[in-house]
């Protein structure tokens, strides 16, 4: 167990009569990036706040390294980016980050960190004048303070423009490269897809999936979508391939990963009749929908 930076075993949390987290078990190794996906109210933020020791839990254990959540050691080892983070509007970015550096007891290069997240120009401006994206970047800068063993990022991409998102994931990779276990709660499925090592899906407080994207796809058995464009007669092509006509000139067919090569061979054998072929593997969206909808056994 000691090789795990973050260990969660059969964690439960009740809010009144409602069980908001039920038997959650999740391990994150140093350097691993895990995406935590789920609908609003699936329990993502509750899980993160439990890991931080901010709210009491009703069963199960959490360990950050070997430390209990909320202990001084655990708080030194964790970095946290809250969802839609906000700061006191009267302080400047430099002052706010200096406060966090002092609280964490680190000697930090505050201007350097702010430059790293692209806030070098706004260093001495009041946070009240910042845009939402800039506040999010400031939040990210404090995650980089010290060398966290566990980084918990709650919806880190909310309010960020596409270029900032790229920067964000570069920073996440850097964190993981330094050996931090990174847990990212997110809705932004498309980015998480390429940027994480493992995906855990929460549905109404229950973990319904926890694996790599490839394994999850295979397990779900979601079809690969092939779209074939006919050169002349789409109806004839549809009849021969057994798919559906989708517009004037194309045919769409679905096949399982195992049948993919067979289908491709058949299409290739048709020679000149086929003008173009487009192949779409199952997207994270499809997977997510599959696992988030599936009833729990």
């Amino acid at each position, binding site marked *: 167990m000691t090789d795990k930076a973050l260990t969660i075993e059969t964690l439960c949390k009740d809010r009144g009569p409602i069980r908001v987290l039920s038997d959650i078990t999740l391990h994150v190794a140093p350097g691993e990036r895990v995406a935590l996906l789920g609908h609003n109210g699936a329990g993502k933020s509750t899980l993160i*706040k439990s890991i*931080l020791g*901010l*709210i009491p839990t009703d069963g199960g254990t959490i360990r950050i390294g070997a430390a209990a959540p909320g202990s*001084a050691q655990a*708080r*030194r080892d*964790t*970095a*946290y*980016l*809250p*969802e*839609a*983070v*906000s*700061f*006191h509007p*009267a*302080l400047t970015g430099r*002052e*706010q980050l200096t*406060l*966090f550096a*002092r*609280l*964490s*007891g680190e000697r930090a290069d505050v201007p350097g960190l702010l430059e790293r997240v692209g806030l070098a120009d706004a260093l001495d401006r*009041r946070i009240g004048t910042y845009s939402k994206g800039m506040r999010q970047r400031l*939040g990210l800068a*404090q995650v980089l303070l010290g060398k966290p063993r566990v980084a918990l990022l709650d919806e880190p991409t909310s309010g960020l423009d596409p270029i900032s998102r790229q920067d964000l994931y570069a920073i996440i990779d850097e964190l993981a490269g330094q050996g931090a276990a990174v847990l990212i709660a997110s809705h932004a499925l498309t980015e998480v897809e390429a940027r994480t090592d493992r995906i855990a899906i929460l549905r109404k407080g229950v973990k319904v999936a926890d694996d790599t994207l490839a394994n999850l796809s295979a397990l779900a058995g979601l079809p690969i979508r092939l779209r074939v464009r006919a050169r002349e007669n789409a109806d004839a092509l549809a009849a021969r391939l057994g798919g559906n006509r989708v517009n004037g000139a194309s045919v769409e067919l679905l096949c399982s990963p195992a049948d993919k090569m067979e289908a491709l061979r058949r299409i290739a054998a048709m020679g000149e009749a086929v003008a173009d072929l487009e192949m779409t593997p199952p997207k994270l969206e499809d997977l997510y929908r599959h696992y988030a909808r599936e009833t729990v056994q």
Partner: protein
Amino acid sequence: MTRFLAITRAEMLILRRNRWLLVATLIMVLFALALTFAGSAPTGTLGVDMLTVSVASMTTLSVYLAPLLALMISFDSIAGDVDRGSLALLLSYPSGRGEILLGKFTAHLAALAFAMTVGFGTAGAVAAWFGGAGPESLMALLRLILTSILLGAVFLALGYLLSALARGATAAAGLSAGLWLVFVVLYDLGLLGAVVMDQGGTFTRSVFPWVMVANPADAFRLWNIAATEGVAMASGMTGAAQALPVWAAPVSLLVWPVLGFVLAWAAFRRVEP
């Protein structure tokens, strides 16, 4: 150990930048000066120097103003951070909740102390310059400043308590206004009503003074009045002060900040950000 000082420093910056410190100090100076000049008339008839009369007037002022200023800073301290979502982040750092509260308290108390010292100090200096002062009236001025800071400390702590209990900063503001009204106005009115009803019975003679001194605002008034004969004369409030032992008012005013802070800390520990 020095983590609470990091909080103190940030809070000081906030108070300075949002002009709270400037406004509070100005309010104190203006009110204190106005009372000193308006209240300088009875000097001749009572045979005390102008500073003594000024201190008596300012004591009455401070009973209202010190709690008000204190609550104005403290009501937002916890509820505001919860509203902004920054409390969860702050609590994920190694500093404990006690340290955070102590850091805020230190900064806020320092700001109050500054406003009180400058305000009462200016008015006192003006009164002494125009109407004379003696060692006794200077002591009274010093006592007024120190007890005003203590009274402010009480209501800072009570403000944190309400801020931790309230759902949101707006609710905390409302509760603070209610608290101020109860301690500073309604409590005394209630006691007055009880004394009138009792018509000089056991309640008036033995219970009333103790109930009165249990209120920090009244303890503040009693302490300042009982300690200086001149001030007591100028304020015309000697009866209640004589019915109690000398230590009653100071103990009340010294215990309240500690009690309030402990209560606020206990409430803060239960806050789930």
